[in-house]
Protein backbone atom coordinates (compact mmCIF):
# COMPACT_ATOMS: atom_id res chain seq x y z
CA UNK A 1 0.00 0.00 0.00
CA UNK A 2 2.61 2.65 0.86
CA UNK A 3 3.95 4.07 -2.37
CA UNK A 4 5.76 7.09 -1.07
CA UNK A 5 9.29 6.56 0.33
CA UNK A 6 8.52 8.59 3.44
CA UNK A 7 5.41 6.53 4.12
CA UNK A 8 7.16 3.19 4.22
CA UNK A 9 7.06 1.50 7.57
CA UNK A 10 3.48 2.52 8.23
CA UNK A 11 1.56 -0.63 7.38
CA UNK A 12 -0.73 0.01 10.33
CA UNK A 13 -2.74 2.73 8.68
CA UNK A 14 -5.10 0.67 6.55
CA UNK A 15 -5.73 -1.87 9.34
CA UNK A 16 -6.41 1.08 11.64
CA UNK A 17 -9.09 2.41 9.37
CA UNK A 18 -10.62 -1.04 8.95
CA UNK A 19 -10.53 -1.72 12.68
CA UNK A 20 -12.09 1.61 13.57
CA UNK A 21 -14.75 1.26 10.91
CA UNK A 22 -15.70 -2.25 11.97
CA UNK A 23 -15.72 -1.16 15.59
CA UNK A 24 -18.05 1.70 14.78
CA UNK A 25 -20.40 -0.18 12.53
CA UNK A 26 -20.47 -3.56 14.22
CA UNK A 27 -19.93 -2.41 17.79
CA UNK A 28 -17.11 -4.89 18.34
CA UNK A 29 -13.49 -5.11 17.31
CA UNK A 30 -12.92 -7.25 14.26
CA UNK A 31 -10.27 -8.03 11.77
CA UNK A 32 -6.98 -6.32 12.28
CA UNK A 33 -7.50 -4.58 15.60
CA UNK A 34 -4.22 -6.04 16.81
CA UNK A 35 -2.48 -3.58 14.53
CA UNK A 36 -3.90 -0.59 16.41
CA UNK A 37 -2.25 1.29 18.03
CA UNK A 38 0.60 1.20 15.54
CA UNK A 39 3.81 -0.58 16.40
CA UNK A 40 5.87 2.58 16.45
CA UNK A 41 3.57 4.13 19.04
CA UNK A 42 3.84 1.03 21.19
CA UNK A 43 7.62 1.06 20.97
CA UNK A 44 8.36 4.72 21.27
CA UNK A 45 6.03 5.77 24.06
CA UNK A 46 3.85 8.83 24.11
CA UNK A 47 4.38 11.54 21.49
CA UNK A 48 5.43 14.34 23.89
CA UNK A 49 8.36 12.31 25.20
CA UNK A 50 9.12 10.80 21.84
CA UNK A 51 9.57 14.13 20.10
CA UNK A 52 13.13 14.90 21.34
CA UNK A 53 13.97 11.29 20.64
CA UNK A 54 12.77 11.67 17.08
CA UNK A 55 15.12 14.59 16.46
CA UNK A 56 18.02 12.46 17.52
CA UNK A 57 17.05 9.55 15.33
CA UNK A 58 16.52 11.34 12.06
CA UNK A 59 13.83 12.20 9.63
CA UNK A 60 12.07 8.87 8.89
CA UNK A 61 11.48 8.21 12.56
CA UNK A 62 10.22 11.74 13.13
CA UNK A 63 7.78 11.45 10.24
CA UNK A 64 6.25 8.35 11.78
CA UNK A 65 6.01 9.68 15.31
CA UNK A 66 4.22 12.92 14.49
CA UNK A 67 1.42 11.43 12.45
CA UNK A 68 -1.30 11.57 15.07
CA UNK A 69 -2.00 13.07 18.47
CA UNK A 70 -4.03 11.24 21.11
CA UNK A 71 -5.03 13.41 24.07
CA UNK A 72 -6.05 10.37 26.08
CA UNK A 73 -2.50 9.07 25.88
CA UNK A 74 -1.07 12.34 27.15
CA UNK A 75 -3.42 12.73 30.07
CA UNK A 76 -3.85 9.10 31.08
CA UNK A 77 -0.37 7.72 30.50
CA UNK A 78 1.99 10.68 30.76
CA UNK A 79 0.18 12.72 33.39
CA UNK A 80 -1.46 9.79 35.14
CA UNK A 81 -4.92 11.29 35.45
CA UNK A 82 -6.60 7.90 35.51
CA UNK A 83 -8.46 6.85 38.65
CA UNK A 84 -6.06 4.02 39.46
CA UNK A 85 -2.93 6.13 38.93
CA UNK A 86 -4.30 9.07 40.91
CA UNK A 87 -5.47 6.89 43.81
CA UNK A 88 -2.25 4.95 44.12
CA UNK A 89 -0.12 8.06 43.68
CA UNK A 90 -1.96 9.99 46.41
CA UNK A 91 -1.86 7.04 48.85
CA UNK A 92 1.79 6.20 48.31
CA UNK A 93 2.84 9.86 48.31
CA UNK A 94 1.06 10.35 51.64
CA UNK A 95 2.62 7.20 53.06
CA UNK A 96 6.08 8.19 51.83
CA UNK A 97 5.78 11.71 53.28
CA UNK A 98 4.66 10.38 56.66
CA UNK A 99 7.43 7.77 56.64
CA UNK A 100 10.00 10.42 55.79
CA UNK A 101 8.97 12.54 58.76
CA UNK A 102 9.42 9.49 60.96
CA UNK A 103 12.74 8.58 59.29
CA UNK A 104 11.38 5.23 58.09
CA UNK A 105 13.34 5.32 54.88
CA UNK A 106 12.61 1.77 53.80
CA UNK A 107 8.89 2.66 53.77
CA UNK A 108 9.68 5.64 51.54
CA UNK A 109 11.44 3.34 49.11
CA UNK A 110 8.62 0.78 49.22
CA UNK A 111 6.02 3.51 48.67
CA UNK A 112 7.97 4.82 45.69
CA UNK A 113 8.12 1.35 44.16
CA UNK A 114 4.42 0.70 44.76
CA UNK A 115 3.52 4.14 43.40
CA UNK A 116 5.59 3.62 40.27
CA UNK A 117 4.15 0.16 39.71
CA UNK A 118 0.61 1.45 40.12
CA UNK A 119 1.32 4.26 37.69
CA UNK A 120 2.65 1.78 35.14
CA UNK A 121 -0.31 -0.56 35.64
CA UNK A 122 -2.72 2.32 35.14
CA UNK A 123 -0.98 3.21 31.89
CA UNK A 124 -1.14 -0.40 30.76
CA UNK A 125 -4.83 -0.58 31.67
CA UNK A 126 -5.61 2.49 29.57
CA UNK A 127 -3.51 1.17 26.71
CA UNK A 128 -5.48 -2.08 26.56
CA UNK A 129 -8.76 -0.22 26.79
CA UNK A 130 -7.64 2.03 23.96
CA UNK A 131 -6.70 -0.95 21.80
CA UNK A 132 -10.18 -2.38 22.34
CA UNK A 133 -12.07 0.85 21.77
CA UNK A 134 -9.97 3.67 20.30
CA UNK A 135 -12.98 5.86 19.53
CA UNK A 136 -14.13 6.10 23.13
CA UNK A 137 -10.66 6.28 24.69
CA UNK A 138 -8.93 8.73 22.37
CA UNK A 139 -10.24 11.78 24.17
CA UNK A 140 -8.45 13.35 27.08
CA UNK A 141 -7.51 16.63 28.60
CA UNK A 142 -7.03 19.20 25.86
CA UNK A 143 -3.72 21.07 25.42
CA UNK A 144 -5.44 24.26 26.62
CA UNK A 145 -6.61 22.59 29.81
CA UNK A 146 -3.12 21.18 30.32
CA UNK A 147 -1.65 24.66 29.86
CA UNK A 148 -4.06 26.04 32.48
CA UNK A 149 -3.17 23.22 34.89
CA UNK A 150 0.54 23.83 34.32
CA UNK A 151 0.06 27.54 34.99
CA UNK A 152 -1.83 26.76 38.22
CA UNK A 153 0.92 24.35 39.28
CA UNK A 154 3.61 26.97 38.61
CA UNK A 155 1.60 29.54 40.55
CA UNK A 156 1.33 27.14 43.48
CA UNK A 157 5.06 26.51 43.38
CA UNK A 158 5.76 30.25 43.41
CA UNK A 159 3.43 30.72 46.39
CA UNK A 160 5.20 27.90 48.24
CA UNK A 161 8.64 29.38 47.53
CA UNK A 162 7.58 32.88 48.56
CA UNK A 163 6.03 31.66 51.82
CA UNK A 164 8.90 29.36 52.76
Amino acid sequence: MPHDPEDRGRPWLQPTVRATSSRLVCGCPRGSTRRWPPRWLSRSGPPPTASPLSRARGSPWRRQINGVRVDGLTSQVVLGTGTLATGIYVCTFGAATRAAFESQWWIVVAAAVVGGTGYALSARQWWRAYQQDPVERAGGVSPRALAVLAAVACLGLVVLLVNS
Partner: protein
Amino acid sequence: MQRLDPLIHAPARLQVVTTLSAVSEAEFVTLRTALDVSDSVLSKHISALAEAGYVRSRKSVHAGRRTTWITLTPAGRAALRAHVAALRELIADVD
Protein backbone atom coordinates in the same frame (compact mmCIF):
# COMPACT_ATOMS: atom_id res chain seq x y z
CA MET B 1 -35.29 5.36 10.72
CA GLN B 2 -32.14 7.45 10.74
CA ARG B 3 -30.88 8.65 7.38
CA LEU B 4 -27.45 8.14 5.94
CA ASP B 5 -25.38 11.29 5.76
CA PRO B 6 -24.50 11.76 2.07
CA LEU B 7 -21.56 13.97 2.95
CA ILE B 8 -19.70 11.26 4.83
CA HIS B 9 -21.14 8.24 3.05
CA ALA B 10 -18.50 8.31 0.32
CA PRO B 11 -15.86 5.67 1.17
CA ALA B 12 -12.95 8.10 1.28
CA ARG B 13 -14.76 10.55 3.53
CA LEU B 14 -15.99 7.76 5.75
CA GLN B 15 -12.38 6.62 6.09
CA VAL B 16 -11.33 10.14 6.98
CA VAL B 17 -13.87 10.60 9.73
CA THR B 18 -13.46 7.09 11.16
CA THR B 19 -9.69 7.52 11.29
CA LEU B 20 -10.07 10.92 12.94
CA SER B 21 -12.57 9.54 15.44
CA ALA B 22 -9.88 7.28 16.93
CA VAL B 23 -7.40 10.10 17.54
CA SER B 24 -7.50 13.68 18.71
CA GLU B 25 -5.72 15.03 15.68
CA ALA B 26 -4.05 13.55 12.61
CA GLU B 27 -1.53 14.94 10.19
CA PHE B 28 -2.58 15.46 6.60
CA VAL B 29 0.17 13.14 5.36
CA THR B 30 -0.95 10.42 7.72
CA LEU B 31 -4.50 10.65 6.43
CA ARG B 32 -3.28 10.64 2.86
CA THR B 33 -1.39 7.42 3.51
CA ALA B 34 -4.38 5.88 5.26
CA LEU B 35 -6.63 6.60 2.33
CA ASP B 36 -3.98 5.89 -0.28
CA VAL B 37 -5.00 8.93 -2.32
CA SER B 38 -3.23 11.96 -3.74
CA ASP B 39 -2.86 15.25 -1.91
CA SER B 40 -5.37 16.99 -4.15
CA VAL B 41 -8.04 14.32 -3.70
CA LEU B 42 -7.67 14.34 0.06
CA SER B 43 -7.63 18.13 0.08
CA LYS B 44 -10.98 18.18 -1.73
CA HIS B 45 -12.50 15.76 0.77
CA ILE B 46 -11.15 17.74 3.71
CA SER B 47 -12.47 20.98 2.24
CA ALA B 48 -15.92 19.49 1.77
CA LEU B 49 -15.97 18.16 5.31
CA ALA B 50 -14.63 21.45 6.67
CA GLU B 51 -17.33 23.42 4.86
CA ALA B 52 -19.93 21.31 6.60
CA GLY B 53 -18.19 21.90 9.91
CA TYR B 54 -17.27 18.23 10.35
CA VAL B 55 -13.52 18.73 10.47
CA ARG B 56 -11.17 21.56 11.32
CA SER B 57 -7.62 22.03 10.10
CA ARG B 58 -4.69 24.02 11.37
CA LYS B 59 -1.25 24.75 10.02
CA SER B 60 1.84 24.03 12.01
CA VAL B 61 5.60 23.95 11.64
CA HIS B 62 7.61 21.08 13.02
CA ALA B 63 11.39 20.91 12.65
CA GLY B 64 11.25 23.42 9.82
CA ARG B 65 8.59 21.47 7.97
CA ARG B 66 5.08 22.81 7.38
CA THR B 67 2.41 20.41 8.52
CA THR B 68 -1.37 20.43 8.45
CA TRP B 69 -3.31 18.82 11.25
CA ILE B 70 -6.92 17.73 10.88
CA THR B 71 -9.37 17.37 13.77
CA LEU B 72 -12.86 15.93 13.86
CA THR B 73 -15.22 18.52 15.34
CA PRO B 74 -18.03 17.67 17.79
CA ALA B 75 -20.49 18.19 14.92
CA GLY B 76 -18.50 15.74 12.79
CA ARG B 77 -18.42 13.23 15.60
CA ALA B 78 -22.18 13.52 16.05
CA ALA B 79 -22.72 13.16 12.31
CA LEU B 80 -20.55 10.06 12.25
CA ARG B 81 -22.47 8.50 15.13
CA ALA B 82 -25.79 9.20 13.41
CA HIS B 83 -24.48 7.80 10.14
CA VAL B 84 -23.18 4.68 11.85
CA ALA B 85 -26.52 4.20 13.59
CA ALA B 86 -28.24 4.40 10.21
CA LEU B 87 -25.79 1.89 8.77
CA ARG B 88 -26.41 -0.48 11.65
CA GLU B 89 -30.13 -0.29 11.02
CA LEU B 90 -29.55 -1.00 7.36
CA ILE B 91 -27.38 -4.06 7.93
CA ALA B 92 -29.33 -5.41 10.87
CA ASP B 93 -31.23 -7.95 8.80
CA VAL B 94 -28.34 -8.99 6.61
CA ASP B 95 -26.89 -12.40 7.34
